[in-house]
């Protein structure tokens, strides 16, 4: 037990990788065994991440469960992992979503072995990003997460998958390039990649690095490189167009993880790296960030409303929802060093709201993509007009589940989404008043696109087209979505347990 306690974070990060190797040993034709092995194995990191959450939430702030070991000593990079109140909810989210995504993948028949292996590799990549306290390590895991997702879309996606996977890959890579260069710049000028040490050194660093180039310039350039990488990942408007394509073409489980966790990597990057390392630049450009967030909220909602493809509608809803995350982050950034009345508290609320929104969107988006998948597997179409409604009569359970998850996505009070949206709006109102007010238009249209989805799928006279298609969910599918629904309700009714941990971390981030 001692070993587990001392290496908890490493265990969380690398157990999926072990699972991947183990799956590799099962013969390819043992499809059922592969599925079950992957699913059951993924419960190990899930259990560990829950244990990590409970252990972290039991008390204490700052980075805990830290492990440090020599890695690339000559260049100052080390294997340094640990969690705080911002990363630990994300690890919990990843740990919970992966088994559910694997369970959702049981209907996949084609090349199940590489599929499952890639998925577990992806999980390690995601855990790694959240746990890294070293820039180089961070980048390594960042890239590790990219590759499996590319293949998942490219190999198991739907019709337009090559275009979508290519766009996803190249776009993200383009962002990462600047990230890598900036990381190296930082490493070069400070001699370390250790994030915790850099928090103290880097923002105050003022020396001439390359002949003639002053430090502020370098910092600004690095700031933009970081921002670009994370902005593409979030995705922020106008870097968002890869998202509807990638989400729509990815297999169901891929979309679940892509929306559920991968988008959070970008927002996490802002919170973990951009804000602490570049506080002054972030404060200066925060209004622009907030403006783009507003555009994402409004245009994301409009674009979602304008869709005829059910999955694309849900994909655009991610743009809309992630806009709130960025808005919250912008408030935290803007409040840096400002002593105005109430701003600090507003920033704390907005920051908590942003992280909470990351978690909540992880739940609702994963659930919604899964539900799209359920219909698609049976109807073989995602076109809302072709679906034509009238499915509720065939699938009352599916109808109830979809209503529930839709309402979470819509931000209905009583369910999770509302808590975080309220917190973000509350935090941003005094800081970015106009932007928040215009953003409300997006909140209004959130209702419009969610109701459009319900109307075009569930409502309507009994649709003879779907008679005999077995539209109702099966037990496996109900088990897949039930934990998500339970969490949506629990967080909506009682957010304290989650928000308290986040809040403490955000307060310490504000300094």
């Amino acid at each position, binding site marked *: 037990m001692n070993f587990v306690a001392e290496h908890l974070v490493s265990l969380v990060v690398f157990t999926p990788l072990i699972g991947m190797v183990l799956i590799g040993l099962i013969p390819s034709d043992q499809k059922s065994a592969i599925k079950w092995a992957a699913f059951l194995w993924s419960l190990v990191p899930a259990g560990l991440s829950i244990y990590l959450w409970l252990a972290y939430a039991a008390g204490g702030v700052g980075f805990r469960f830290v492990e440090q070991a020599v890695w690339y000593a000559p260049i100052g990079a080390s294997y340094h992992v640990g969690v705080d109140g911002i990363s630990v909810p994300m690890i919990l989210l990843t740990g919970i979503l992966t088994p559910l995504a694997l369970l959702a993948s049981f209907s996949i028949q084609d090349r199940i072995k590489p599929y499952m292996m890639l998925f577990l590799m992806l999980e390690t990549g995601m855990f790694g990003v959240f746990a890294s306290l070293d820039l180089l390590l961070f980048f390594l895991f960042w890239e590790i997460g990219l590759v499996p997702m590319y293949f998942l879309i490219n190999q198991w996606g739907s019709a337009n998958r090559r275009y979508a996977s290519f766009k996803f890959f*190249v*776009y993200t890579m383009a962002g990462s390039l600047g990230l890598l260069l900036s990381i190296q710049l930082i490493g070069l000028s400070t001699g370390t990649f250790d994030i915790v040490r850099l928090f103290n050194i880097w923002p105050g660093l003022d020396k001439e690095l390359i002949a003639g180039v002053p430090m502020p310039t370098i910092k600004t350039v690095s700031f933009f490189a970081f921002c670009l990488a994370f902005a593409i990942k979030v995705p922020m408007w*106008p870097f*968002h*167009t890869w998202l*509807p394509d990638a989400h729509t073409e990815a297999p169901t489980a891929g979309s679940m993880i892509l929306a559920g966790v991968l988008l959070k990597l970008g927002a996490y990057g802002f919170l973990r790296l951009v804000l602490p390392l570049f506080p002054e630049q972030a404060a200066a450009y925060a209004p622009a960030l907030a403006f783009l967030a507003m555009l994402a909220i409004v*245009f994301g909602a*409009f*674009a*979602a*409303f*304008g*869709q005829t493809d059910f999955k694309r509608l849900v994909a655009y809803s991610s743009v809309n929802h992630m806009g709130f995350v960025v808005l919250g982050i912008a408030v935290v950034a803007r409040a840096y060093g400002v002593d105005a009345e*109430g701003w*600090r*508290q*507003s*920033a*704390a*609320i907005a920051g*908590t709201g942003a992280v909470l929104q990351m978690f909540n969107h992880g739940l609702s988006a994963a659930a919604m993509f899964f539900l799209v998948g359920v219909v698609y597997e049976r109807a073989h179409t995602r076109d809302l007009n072709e679906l034509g409604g*009238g499915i*509720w*009569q065939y699938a*009352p359970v599916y109808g*109830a589940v979809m*209503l529930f998850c839709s*309402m979470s996505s819509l931000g*209905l*009070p*009583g369910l999770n989404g*509302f*808590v975080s949206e*309220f*917190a973000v*709006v*509350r935090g941003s*109102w*005094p800081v970015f*008043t106009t932007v*928040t007010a215009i953003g*409300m238009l997006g*909140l*209004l*249209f959130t*209702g*419009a696109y969610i*109701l459009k989805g319900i109307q075009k799928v569930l*409502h*309507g*006279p*009994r649709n003879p087209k779907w008679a005999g298609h077995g539209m109702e969910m099966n037990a496996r599918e109900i088990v897949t979505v039930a934990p998500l629904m339970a969490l949506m309700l629990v967080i909506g009714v*009682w*957010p*304290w347990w989650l*928000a*308290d941990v986040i*809040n*403490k971390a955000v*307060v310490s981030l504000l300094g």
Partner: protein
Amino acid sequence: MPIETLIWLIPVPPLLSFFLIWLFANRNKALSHTIAIVLMAISWIISLYVFLTAITTEHFGAEVFGHSVPWLPTGDGALNMGVMVDPLTAGMLFFVPLTCLLIFIYSVGYHNFGGRLDPHDVHSTGSPAHNGVEPMYSRFFAFLSLFAFGMLLLVVADNLLMMFVGWEIMGLCSYLLIGFWHGRNYDDPKKITPRQAAVKAFMTTRVGDVFMMLGIVYLYFHTGTLSFREILYNEDVLHHLAETPSYIVGLSVAAMVGLLLFAGTVGKSAQFPLHVWLPDAMEGPTPVSAMIHAATMVSAGVYAMVRMFPLMSAGWHHGEALTPPMMAMGFIGAFTALFASTIAVAQRDVKKVLAYSTISQLGYMIAALGIGAYIAAAFHLITHAFFKALLFLGSGSVIHGVEHGVHHTHEHIDPQDMFNMGALRKKMPITFWTFLIGGFALSGFPFVTAGFWSKDEILADAFVANQLVFWVLVISAFLTAFYTMRQIALTFLGEPRTHSAEHAQETAWTMTTPLVILSFFAIFAGFVGVPEHFPALGELFHNLNVNRFHEFIGGTLIEHPEAVEFNVFPLLASIVVGVGGLTLGWLVYGWKPLKAGQPDPLAKPLGPIYTLLENKYYFDELYDFIFVRPARWISEVLVYQVMDKNIIDGFLHGVARVAVAIGIFFKGAEKVIINDPPDRLADFTQWLGRSFRVIQTGRIQSYLLIVMLVAVAFGGVYYLMLSGLVK
């Protein structure tokens, strides 16, 4: 059990029944309604106990029952959620659970419990039952329970956010229940279907809700709390809010927050210009209409304003200039009262008349608040809940009775159209008498109906405060009485105009009992609010210790509001318009009853105005043109096609094309400079491979030999490197 725990428990039973029915009883109709009714009754009993405790507590209002717990961390502090019962809440607790319970019981009969499932309905259709029991019976009770939970949560909330939670849960339930028959289609493609009406209701109210949310966050920013007690019962906070300028020049923070919150009420209580959803909400089953339009959701909007009144009127004193939110309430309320009552005059659908009358009556309450008549507004809220629930349930009973006739005769008529009715008083006597009581209460028939006392109080206050508001309300009171008599006459009097009406049948006891109970309150609920200075009656009721409403509810405010002095003019006006409207209605529709196929006698004299009213001033068409269509176009074309597909993706594809072009260029260059030499190298390798094929013998021994030789060779090289001979 401490009273605070009991208050927490009030909203719980209906929530519990929602989950129980949803998860466990969804296939058992009897179990479903048993769970719903029993748990609702428990809620009602707890509420009644709390109400009785409240009215027997000395100086209740200065001291209240309440309890709260931290809910969301906010930096160094926390946002609390809690419950509270003050005199206003106690008043709500008296009528909300009771009407909910009656509506639950009524629904059993309305959905033909005990009847057999019609063969058409065995496979769920999502449309009303053809005949016999409703196939989605359990779902209905689950939604209804959730609705009751939302309302009770709103009532016991001690803070604005929890109130908003209940508010929105009701919004969801009204969406679900209006669209309950989501599979229903009409032959007339112009007629709005339930599923469209549901979306319309949700979206229209959401317009108000997003403003309200801004109001909540704004208030929260300035006060650091959302608790009613800490904001509304704190002179310093109110003073601070009224003095601090807001983002808009000329408005204080209190005024701006007030206006934003009022926008929420405009949506929820269907005030002009967001009134359009409520008449279409009649697409839901009738118990739902009663639930939404009487006991719960629309009352919630007014309740919120009554609750927030100290904030709305912050900085205002009797006789001084009104605050901006009060002016907005006064004018929008009065205008809506008149506007909606004119539309009601020309409606044919028995439920739509009631829908517009609800909008109009809510306008009364809002206008009352606008002129500072706090208690009158609360009073009318309660009496209206009773008689409007009665009228809606009565109209449901009427429709149910006529539907019975339709099934019997196989006629193809609209069973909700009053012009297809007539003479139902003989067929449905209980429904008739109770409806008559409700109708008279709505019209403000003097002295014996609850509606008279509450409406009279509003008029008395308006007469002192604002003449314009007063006269607008008087005219709409006249119209109200007129269209009510029109409705009664068309439905119940004269001769049957269709065979279905002839074969209508009185409904089951589960439906008529709630009617009888509600009509009791439609008469007697008014006596609690008879003004003390009212000639004769005031003293009589005072001696009986009945009319304590003013004193009790007044205890909600810090400063107990003074009752207006008795003035005979508004009283006379109130009597004249009430009785006069009823009389005129009877003269037009009751004296010479309409024959089958005869048009509305008003249609000819009013001419184009009648068409205008019949079409509700064309607001639906207008909104469709200026909001709905542009929103579609912006979404589908501008944002998605033009911006995302053409501009952003176009730019990306352009970049990609440039990259590819550069690639092709380099590919050509590469072929000559870089590619060819390696190709030659590759050729060479191939040749080498072919040559070495000779040693590919397939014999382990020879491979091992080669491995050994290579190992020795590498070992030699490494040795040389390490010993420094080769650098």
